């Protein structure tokens, strides 16, 4: 027993040590120096990155969740198979290509990047919305209908509250993915912290690499953490226990 605990703790401290060693090494070599010496540029890039993610994610949620609701209504159910397959195929197209192809449609710039990120974020949110609504026990819908609930009441009181766990997980996936993809916005002239990473790659400058990559990484991990916290707040207690088992 104690041995197992030892191994567990050992591993944990090994990882801590690795992270600390990395930061110590990076700081010793002044790889973070650009964040301070070019702090105004850094703040601009950081803000661009944040706005890219925020705007494209919000737009994607506004489109994907209603679309997922719509496709699971009885009227459109027949199209679900087709749409789901298209979405699955869409997800295999590399994000870089989506960004690149937008250039020929919208030209170069911030808006192009937002639009590409928006398109790419729709997929996971849509997929999880549909999955969440599809896995609801049909008996619940039957019971709700039988007791005289209107379709809108069934949707808002039964279906969405029980699917919210899955929908939020989709949003989290999309946002975290989006933070990474936004680093590629440089390619279409969309700015963001990717600018420093690419500069670092092209100039072989470790300072630019680390000053760009570490903030992006922290942003992604933080977003993941915060959105998980949000899930705990928003998912109804009973629905949570069911989705966890």
């Amino acid at each position, binding site marked *: 027993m104690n041995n197992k605990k030892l191994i567990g703790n050992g*591993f944990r401290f090994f990882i801590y040590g690795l992270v600390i060693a990395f930061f110590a090494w990076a700081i010793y070599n002044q790889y973070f120096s650009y964040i301070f010496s070019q702090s105004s540029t850094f703040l601009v890039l950081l803000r661009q990155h944040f706005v890219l993610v925020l705007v494209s994610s919000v737009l994607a949620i506004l489109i994907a969740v209603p679309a997922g609701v719509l496709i699971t209504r009885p009227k459109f159910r027949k199209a679900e198979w087709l749409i789901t397959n298209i979405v699955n*195929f869409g997800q295999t197209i590399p*994000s870089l*290509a989506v960004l*690149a192809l937008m250039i020929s449609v919208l030209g170069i710039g911030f808006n192009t990047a937002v639009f590409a990120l928006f398109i790419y974020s729709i997929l996971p949110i849509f997929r999880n919305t549909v999955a969440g609504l599809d896995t609801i026990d049909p008996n619940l819908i039957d019971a709700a209908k039988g007791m005289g609930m209107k379709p809108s009441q069934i949707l808002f009181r039964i279906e969405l509250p029980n699917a919210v766990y899955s929908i939020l997980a989709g949003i989290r996936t999309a946002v975290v993915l989006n933070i*990474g993809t936004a680093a590629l916005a440089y390619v279409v002239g969309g700015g963001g912290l990717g600018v420093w*990473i690419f500069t670092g*790659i092209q100039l072989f400058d470790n300072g630019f690499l680390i000053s760009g*990559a570490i903030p992006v*990484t922290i942003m992604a991990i933080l977003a993941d953490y915060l959105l998980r916290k949000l899930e705990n707040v928003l998912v109804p207690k009973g629905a949570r226990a069911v989705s966890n088992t």
Partner: protein
Amino acid sequence: MEQWARFLEINAPRILELTLDHALLVSLAIVVALLIGVPLGIYLTTNEYLAGTVLQVASVTLTIPSLALFGIMIPIFSLINKGIGFLPAFVALVLYSQLPIIRNTYTAIKNVNPEMRDAAIGMGMKTHQRLLRVEIPNAMPVIMAGIRTAVVLNIGIAVIAAYIGAGGLGVLITQGISRGDNYLIISGSLAVALLAIIADGLLLLIQKRFTTKAVVE
């Protein structure tokens, strides 16, 4: 259409070559990831304490954006003069594959019916016999699903690796971007999508082939 035909006539051999490069990079990474992930996943079922930490670390790793991970790895691998090229890309892909493989192996073995495990112990199987004959075969579909997730994920991530000189289909896309050539971009991304779909289908086939009929996912 005619332009496409001409484009393919010139570029088909190169596309094929890059596709093979891409597939090779991903397959190598997956094989290594399996060699680490599956035994680790199995071991974790016997050590809850370690399981929590490992799964957490793997899950955080997966949230690191690929370009950022490459950005972090270049300085580290520069220490041994391998800052760009195959090695950092390969290591990154191995790392990204760990979560789906470890997690699925771990949960699959955990979820093997305890009565089945009891029966195996009851008829006198040793731990390794039990693992090989009872637990792993029954956990196979879920483990395979984890491998499929990892493969599809890696095929996408390997595209970005072109920026750090690891070759593969990403080269077509990055060249297409710098030359403003949509043919290159489209053919590159279609090849990536196709590769992902074929790999996924192939693995599904293997999974069906090698799981006992009675074991259903």
